């Protein structure tokens, strides 16, 4: 036998990251910012998108790519609120979307007629953190029914995200959830993380979320939403409804 060793030195994510770079370039050429929404299952990604399309749909043209392991139920729910295209990706078992799936989904979208792109990832706080989809930013959602220590349990996702949306805040009077503790845990992992706190049911905090989306659109995806400095979390919450 003649055994020899071939050096490879190829990152496993190399191909995905190359395609993600192409997606990012393509979206950039059309001035379309993309937000990659990630969370555990049931945190309220779909409902936040439904509400956003309902309230902001006349103002901004928003396309959505949804990923689910099975069914296109989420895409069907979202499509009720928009005439713009909603692309469903059924991953058939895979625990995350990858850049190639997003690239293929873009083929069906008219990017010149799109102001914002939402990518609703598979509900999972582990795997989607590793896969770049070509987004402008990851937005991690977690609900007040999930526990304050989610950021400590899933640090990679909170490190990768630029924005965090605390959802279901209408339930705060009914659940033992310490908002400031949750924000502190998240900022311990990622000090630059910007928080929104919303209820897609009663509308709390959605004005701040919509303000962010408007500014993101106007900037073509290049903006960084700055939080006020010199204010504690509590003060910021008081000063700006829905914003922690």
């Amino acid at each position, binding site marked *: 036998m003649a055994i020899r060793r*071939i050096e490879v030195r*190829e990152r496993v994510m190399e191909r995905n990251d190359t395609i993600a770079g192409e997606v990012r370039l393509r979206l950039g050429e059309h001035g379309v910012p993309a937000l990659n929404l990630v969370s555990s299952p049931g945190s309220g990604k779909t409902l936040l998108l439904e509400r956003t399309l309902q309230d902001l749909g006349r103002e901004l043209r928003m396309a959505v790519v949804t990923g689910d392991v099975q069914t296109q139920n989420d895409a069907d729910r979202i499509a009720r609120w928009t005439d713009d295209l909603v692309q469903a990706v059924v991953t058939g078992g895979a625990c995350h979307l990858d850049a190639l799936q997003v690239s293929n989904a873009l083929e069906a979208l008219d990017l010149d007629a799109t102001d914002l792109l939402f990518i609703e990832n598979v509900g999972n706080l582990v795997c989607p953190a590793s896969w770049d989809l070509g987004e402008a930013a990851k937005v991690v959602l977690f609900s007040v029914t999930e526990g304050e220590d989610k950021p400590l349990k899933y640090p990679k996702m909170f490190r990768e995200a630029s924005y965090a949306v605390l959802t279901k805040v209408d339930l705060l009077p009914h659940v033992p959830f310490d908002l400031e503790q949750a924000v502190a845990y998240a900022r311990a992992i990622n000090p630059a993380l910007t928080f929104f706190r919303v209820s897609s049911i009663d509308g709390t905090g959605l004005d701040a979320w919509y303000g962010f989306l408007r500014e993101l659109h106007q900037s073509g995806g290049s903006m960084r939403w700055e939080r006020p400095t010199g204010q504690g979390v509590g003060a910021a919450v008081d000063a700006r409804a829905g914003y922690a």
Partner: protein
Amino acid sequence: MHPPRCPMHEMSVALEICRITEARVGRDSLPRVREVGVIVGRQSGLEPDNLLFCLDALLGRPPFAGARTELEVVAGDELSVSYLEVDDGDPPH
């Protein structure tokens, strides 16, 4: 200690490792692969035992004729295919 499993995340990474291996074999017309060297960072979000379990399952089948995986666990979040060990067979007499 749980027995190794093959969760979807590790399986998707293992499939990508196999794709990289196949691509390199095709590109360089390599002979039979005996061993695949993989570097896994402890912060890569992967469970090394589970990844090894998935790779053993995939590399034990065609087009890989029972190739082994050599996993090197390192600090950080690196995840890469480091080398392929191939067998050129017996030299012609």
